[in-house]
């Protein structure tokens, strides 16, 4: 094993001091002077309607109001993967809270007051609030123009329906397999919508100056993608990419919610309406809930067959996604989930249909896990049920069917090498699987649950990353990249990678947040791909700098190039033990010759990475043929819970997550991802969910009723186990891991509840209330109660 100096060490965060000292600036912390204008949004009060008239005359009369704009001012469609979205609603509104008009004023108070004065007349259409309604033969169409929308070639919209995309995967012969199987299990599982709840809300400040330059400051995971979408959407105004600049300071949490473009388009567009003045738009917590991306709801109908010996023979998985009013990003969640809905299992016969369905609810979109958490709930619940019914230990059953390196994936490509088997072993061991545990308290039941998980980055095949690396006079470094530090520790890991190659310690490396004018291209900080993709780019940039250094030493000092190496910020030579040239002596100044001339000059490295082997093209009917996923990160997770049988309340004494990270570049930061991700996942199972009324209005757009966990709601113990089977094309063998830590939360808990009480909850969340009501329904409650009294 290679001995690394910086890789694999828990280096201190390079953004640490800035954050703990409060020096870190977030978008709302930036100052723009007295000229700053503020925008407030006029929101749709109904879920589905034709806009008949907008009367802004009262608002316009108010002192301090600068301008009121409506959809007419921006008749453009835009979107990431499909152009189905608008800057401001055009002739129709499609969800409660949708932006219909914007009031720009001198101060936020005036803007808000004036927004209330804008009168919008609607002709209501019947709202489609669930998938059943949306799929009905004669259902109202939410996007009648669907067939005209531009979209990526791997989407298949169904014209004149509410199905925006259908991903089909076919392999083998499921019908035959079901007929021949010893056991067939069929069930339906549902998952509601969820909110990211980054503590920082979305915000954007746009400035369109008189020279025609548009600068937008945003809280974003995707500066370059935002620039691209802004430039594309506003191209009719004569803007080209070079005119658009996106600056992204520190981000107060993303979790997918700040990927792509949601409300930020308003910052860009409104600025063009008030040329020369910066204009700010900051979402309220309520808007954060109902008008950014939400995690989509899912109904999964799963049919699974296996042989007596426990071999899974076939799966049919119909995934119906409630994707909301606009699916420009969300449709790719549907796509990614469809491709991987077998979970990390080797299954010869596969039939998957993943439906992206328009509804009159807020737009769905990316959320940490990108669809995998949702389908895994049903799949791993079903796997557990199957194991139990055929009287096989659920962990054994999983081991037997777990996917192995080289196996053919559902779409025909090969599975990458992975440490799944090791992860299963270790997770089972850590939770003491098989050891029967009983509570001393007769009121309490103990249960254990297990689940495998996997996820691949969902990204276009040409998603790429770039890095510039600049040496300074003292051999410290500035690295320019456009990945976002959203808390995961990305900047630190990039510094470690460069440090390892160049032997400059991470403390001497500074990485600033991106400015698309200065920092080179990065697709987006999503999909757990930046450690891998951008890590490769940074490594290449560092190697590029190193090669330039060696070239120079060879050229200026006539050393044997092949024997040169870097150590402790110096160039050394294997041939000449006495040769030690500190980097700081020449990385800017160059190397002086006897005649007073110099060779070299500032060293600037450049690195780029694009997965040139990936392709999203495949047979639309079967998905066979492409290589849409670059690799999977896999693992296993286990939990021990204690349920109070009377109250349904769940306590978590211990939860374990074993994940194959390829190579742990910074173990402490990964541990942070495990702890934070698991808690976020656990909360989606135990407390969170979005509730809508019968008119499509969100009932809990606040932390008072959308309960995210507090410091009192944590497991007693979280064990993170890092397995390291290297990813050959990853930087030092690393793979991404940011999302994976929350993916298995739902099935481990569902399976543990079943283990403890014998009840199978098939809808999330699994609240205390749901457990009690289920126990009552099954008549189990009274029984346990009597038992309880008897026991006394």
């Amino acid at each position, binding site marked *: 094993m290679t001995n690394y100096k910086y890789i694999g060490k828990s280096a201190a965060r390079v953004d640490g001091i800035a954050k703990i000292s409060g020096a870190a600036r977030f978008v709302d912390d930036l100052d723009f002077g007295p000229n700053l204008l503020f925008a407030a949004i006029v929101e749709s009060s109904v879920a589905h309607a034709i806009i008949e008239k907008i009367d802004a005359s009262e608002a316009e009369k108010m002192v301090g109001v600068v301008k009121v704009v409506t959809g007419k001012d921006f008749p453009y469609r835009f979107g990431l993967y499909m152009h189905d979205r608008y800057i401001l609603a055009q002739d129709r509104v499609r969800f409660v809270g949708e932006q219909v008009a914007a009031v720009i004023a001198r101060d*936020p*108070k005036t803007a*808000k*007051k004036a927004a209330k004065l804008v009168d919008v007349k609607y002709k209501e259409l019947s709202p489609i609030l669930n998938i059943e309604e949306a799929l009905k033969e004669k259902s109202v169409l939410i996007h009648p123009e669907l067939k005209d929308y531009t979209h990526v070639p791997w989407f298949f919209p169904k014209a004149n329906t509410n199905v925006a995309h259908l991903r089909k995967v076919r392999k083998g012969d499921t019908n035959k397999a079901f007929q021949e199987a010893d056991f067939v299990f069929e069930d339906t599982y549902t998952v509601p919508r969820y909110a990211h709840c980054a503590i920082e809300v979305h915000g954007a400040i746009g400035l369109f100056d008189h020279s025609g330059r548009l600068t937008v400051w945003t809280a974003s995971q995707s500066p370059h993608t935002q620039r691209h979408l802004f430039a594309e959407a506003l191209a009719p105004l004569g803007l080209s990419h070079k005119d658009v600049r996106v600056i992204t300071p520190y981000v107060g949490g993303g979790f997918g919610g700040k990927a792509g473009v949601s409300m930020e388009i308003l910052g860009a567009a409104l600025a063009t309406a008030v040329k020369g003045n910066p204009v700010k738009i900051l979402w*309220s917590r309520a808007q954060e809930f109902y008008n950014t991306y939400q995690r989509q709801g899912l109904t999964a109908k799963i049919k699974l067959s296996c042989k007596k010996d426990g071999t899974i023979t076939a799966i049919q998985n119909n995934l119906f996604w409630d994707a909301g009013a606009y699916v420009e990003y969300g449709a790719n969640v549907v796509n990614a989930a469809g491709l991987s809905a077998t979970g990390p299992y080797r299954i010869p016969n596969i039939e998957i249909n993943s439906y992206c369905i328009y509804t009159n609810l807020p737009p769905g979109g990316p959320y940490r896990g990108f669809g995998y958490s949702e389908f895994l709930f049903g799949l791993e619940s079903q796997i557990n049920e199957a194991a139990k019914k055929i009287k096989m230990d659920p962990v054994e059953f999983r081991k037997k069917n777990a996917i192995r390196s080289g196996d053919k994936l559902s779409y025909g490509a090969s599975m990458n090498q992975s440490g799944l088997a090791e992860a299963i072993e270790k997770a089972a061991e850590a939770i003491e699987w098989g050891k029967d545990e009983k509570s001393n308290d007769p009121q309490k039941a103990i249960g254990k649950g297990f689940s495998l998980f996997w996820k691949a980055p969902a990204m276009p095949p040409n998603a790429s990353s770039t890095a510039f690396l600049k040496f300074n006079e003292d051999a410290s470094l500035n690295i320019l990249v456009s990945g976002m530090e959203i808390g995961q520790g990305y900047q630190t890991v990039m510094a470690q990678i460069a440090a390892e190659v160049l032997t400059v310690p991470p403390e001497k490396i500074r990485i600033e947040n991106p400015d698309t004018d200065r920092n080179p291209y990065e697709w987006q900080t999503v999909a757990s791909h930046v450690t891998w993709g951008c890590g490769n780019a940074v490594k290449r940039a560092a190697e590029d700098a190193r090669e330039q250094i060696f070239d120079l030493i060879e050229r200026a000092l006539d050393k044997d190039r092949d024997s040169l190496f870097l150590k402790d910020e110096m160039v050394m030579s294997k041939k000449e033990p006495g040769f030690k040239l500190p980097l700081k002596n020449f990385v800017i100044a160059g190397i002086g010759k006897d005649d007073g001339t110099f060779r070299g000059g500032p060293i600037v490295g450049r690195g780029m990475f694009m997965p040139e082997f990936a392709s999203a093209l495949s047979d639309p009917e079967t998905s066979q043929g492409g290589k849409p996923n670059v690799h999977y990160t896999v693992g296993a997770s286990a939990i021990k819970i204690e349920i*109070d049988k*009377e*109250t349904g*309340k769940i306590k978590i004494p211990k939860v374990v997550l074993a994940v194959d990270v390829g190579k742990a570049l910074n173990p402490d930061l990964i541990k942070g991802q495990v702890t934070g991700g698991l808690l976020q996942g656990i909360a989606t199972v*135990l*407390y969170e969910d979005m*509730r809508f009324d019968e008119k499509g209005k969100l*009932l*809990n757009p606040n932390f*008072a*009723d959308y*309960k995210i*966990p*507090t*410091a*009192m*709601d944590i497991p007693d113990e979280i064990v993170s186990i890092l397995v390291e089977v290297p990813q050959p094309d990853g930087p030092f063998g690393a793979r991404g891991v940011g999302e994976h830590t929350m993916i298995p939360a739902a099935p481990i808990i569902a399976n543990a509840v079943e283990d403890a009480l014998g009840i199978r909850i098939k809808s999330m969340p699994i*609240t*205390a*209330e749901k457990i*009690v*009501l289920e126990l*009552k329904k099954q008549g189990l409650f009274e029984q346990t109660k009597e038992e309880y*009294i008897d026991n*006394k």
Partner: protein
Amino acid sequence: MSILQDFDYFKPTTIEFAIDLISNNKNATILAGGTDLIVNLKEGTATPEIVVDIKSLKDLKKIEFKDNCLIIGALVTFTDLLESVVIKEKFPLVWEVSKTVASVGIRNRATMVGNICSAVPCLDSGPLLCVYEADVNVRSSKGKRKIPIKDWFLGNKKTALKHGELVTHISIPFPNQKTGGCYVRLGRYCGEDLAQVNVALLAFANNAYRIAFGAVAPTPLRANKIESFLNGKKINDHLIEQAKELIPDEISPITDIRATKEYRMHMAKVMFERGIKTAVERLNGDGLEYGESLV
């Protein structure tokens, strides 16, 4: 976000002036901790013309125990209650309730008087004050008035407070014999949450019991039937089972976003059972320490 509504702000230094202000203005609101009021102002659900900040009325900031009666002034915060020795020693149930209110940053501002003035069905102080048979003391230009807690809550967010009246303090008579108390509160998780059901219980040495529920009706309410059923009896499992059967006659929970009526009803029984047992155990000098959650 600043408040959209314009209002005048006063911070009187005498009670008289405060009362003057609220009696001479139709649309005046008292501001103490503000943890409720500011939210309402921001949401536009409160639209006063004047806001009277009473935090300079130092007399209202006292916790006092005299003549066997506890006085909790209108400016006493939940943190003050938690830090008071008298409360911890003589009224541990008040302490236990205070500890469940929101979180530190709120408890440092929010007052118990403010809590009962908000009169939301899920308020924490309601059941507590019911079992202590506390009085709400108000003052107006016409003089002073004592309102028994049972007459205080008139409905969801409605109290017996009249125009021009200011609540000066709550008074809680010290029980004339030994008691054990218990407060059980159901939230969706351990962290800050609005109670979905709450129940306060006091068990007296002479086998008398006082029980009050919250969040299961528009106002907090005493469980009179259960109290008379249990009166004079020593608690045992069988008795509790019988008493639980009476709960549906006492409370009328509803289904809302926080819980269904079915679960509320179920939990009211469980909480009653656990609460009464603990109250009795505490009366007898053992049982869980005050402040430990039972659900």
